[in-house]
């Protein structure tokens, strides 16, 4: 097919997506003007049917749609009625929030608030299954709202597109029955927990990375602890692995997020025992779930203790970034400035040096000789892609390569050091300079810059 056809198709797709978003906005504007969360379908006329006086508040359509859980002896019409009148705030429309939101919408929770401020990326979709190929590039709130609308149009969706901040957190959390922590970073986790303490809302907390997941319910009753009761001191930034660096098998947050939906349904409907004071640990590698009994609420906790310092008045001024040493996102770490500018080269300079026709030179520090590329990324990343001829010395095990480095130092080949984005390569370069190596430079921006500025065919991950 010709290019003009593709262009037209692309344009039509874009128009279609824009219209979907507009429909969703209008639907929300309409529903948010209603005084109460909707439990009856707009199309229904007031009726005097025999099931009206039974107290569950379910319409004929509700009964048909949710029949399989309504006929469940331990659930029933009353529990379904509570669910349809209930509300949940899901913070994060990512790997955890995707299955949580989908299952809660499918189960008929009356009103779902979604908090996120990111846009959908292709690398999200393996686990963030609420998003679609066609919504890559869209705001996650809009993308998720479309999926929910397609799954259960009776659910009222409220979008909090600017994310959760100390300024808006308590105001938003207050408007929901249950809060789901489906976030991806430590400062947001402390903020959500504190806001739930202040607003006295139960918090269904899930987390996942790699092949491991964690799940518990905080603030669900008098003896139920909060996040700070368990972790009064924030983990150090280097202890907080990010999905974008450490990787995650998509189904792992899928399982934890699904369990978060389950715990939320139990809390809203009043059915079952909430997972309070119990931490469920999933080890997907070993195929094992186990739970650990947790402490009770700490009387001295600054958020939920007997004399808390974090209150409705003080929370907005709390500095979560300072407390955790991290920005409230899971973006890449800030670029380091460990080296002097003359100890670094750009990817364009690297390209020029690699394509140098000079061949090897006998001068030990001849900068025109084609350099040896040392790649210090982890083995998994090196295995995805690397520059031709690159020698692999992962930074995490750099000490093992000292003899090789000393051998190289005795040779005549200049060395350039690369990693993914240019932080570890600076650390490695600094170490090599310490070892007395002369002709070593770091590549600014690493293989990401190489892919962006030199070789568009080089994979980004």
């Amino acid at each position: 097919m010709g290019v003009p056809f593709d262009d037209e198709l692309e344009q039509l797709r874009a128009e279609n997506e824009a219209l979907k978003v507009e429909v969703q906005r209008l639907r929300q504007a309409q529903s948010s003007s209603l005084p109460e969360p909707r439990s009856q379908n707009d199309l229904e006329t007031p009726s005097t049917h025999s099931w009206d006086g039974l107290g569950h508040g379910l319409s004929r359509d509700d009964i048909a749609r949710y029949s399989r859980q309504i006929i469940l002896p331990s659930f029933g019409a009353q529990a379904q009625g509570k669910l349809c009148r209930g509300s949940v705030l899901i913070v994060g429309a990512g790997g955890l929030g995707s299955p949580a939101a989908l299952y809660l919408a499918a189960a008929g929770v009356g009103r779902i608030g979604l908090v996120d401020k990111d846009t959908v990326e292709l690398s999200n979709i393996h686990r963030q299954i609420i998003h679609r190929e066609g919504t890559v590039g869209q705001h996650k709130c809009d993308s998720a709202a479309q999926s929910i609308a397609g799954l259960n149009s009776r659910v009222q969706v409220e979008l909090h597109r600017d994310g959760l901040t100390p300024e808006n957190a308590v105001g938003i959390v207050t408007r929901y029955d249950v809060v789901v922590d489906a976030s991806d970073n430590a400062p947001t986790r402390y903020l959500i927990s504190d806001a739930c303490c202040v607003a006295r809302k139960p918090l269904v907390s899930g987390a996942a990375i790699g092949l491991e997941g964690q799940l518990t319910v905080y603030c669900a009753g008098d003896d139920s602890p909060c996040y700070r009761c368990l972790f009064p001191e924030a983990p150090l930034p280097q202890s907080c692995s990010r999905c974008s660096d450490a990787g995650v098998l998509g189904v792992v947050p899928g399982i934890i997020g699904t369990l978060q939906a389950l715990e939320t349904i139990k809390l809203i409907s009043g059915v079952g025992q909430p997972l309070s004071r119990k931490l469920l640990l999933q080890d997907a590698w070993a195929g094992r779930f186990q739970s650990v009994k947790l402490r009770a609420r700490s009387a001295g906790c600054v958020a939920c203790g007997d004399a808390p310092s974090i209150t409705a008045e003080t929370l907005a001024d709390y500095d979560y970034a300072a407390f955790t040493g991290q920005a409230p996102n899971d973006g890449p770490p800030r670029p380091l400035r460990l080296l002097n500018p003359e100890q670094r080269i750009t990817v364009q300079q690297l390209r020029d040096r690699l394509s140098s026709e000079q061949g090897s030179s006998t001068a030990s520090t001849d900068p025109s000789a084609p350099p040896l590329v040392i790649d210090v990324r982890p083995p998994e990343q090196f295995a995805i892609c690397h520059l031709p001829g690159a020698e692999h010395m992962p930074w995490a095990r750099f000490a093992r390569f000292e003899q090789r480095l000393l051998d190289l130092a005795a040779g005549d080949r200049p060395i350039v050091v690369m990693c993914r984005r240019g932080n570890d390569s600076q650390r490695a370069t600094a170490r090599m300079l310490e070892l007395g190596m002369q002709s070593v430079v770091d590549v600014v921006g690493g293989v990401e810059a190489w892919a962006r500025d030199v070789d568009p065919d080089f994979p980004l991950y």
Partner: protein
Amino acid sequence: MAVKILFFARSRELAGVSETSVAVQAADTTESLLSHLLEQFPALKELDGRFVFSLNHEYLERGSVVPLKAGDEVAIIPPISGG
């Protein structure tokens, strides 16, 4: 006598193993076991005590000193923040 140690999340990365077994004496406690683990796996110092420490699937108050017995299972559980 031996006790079993389970490592979760970041502690698993730092220790390089998901579990291990440590021989302890009658006088050993959860506190002396923690010190021993920090010697055996110095990388765990990064956690700086910021984890849930459990004995036989029950949370242990920080600083609590509980005698150990054969077959005990302790776990080091730092929080995961990803999602």
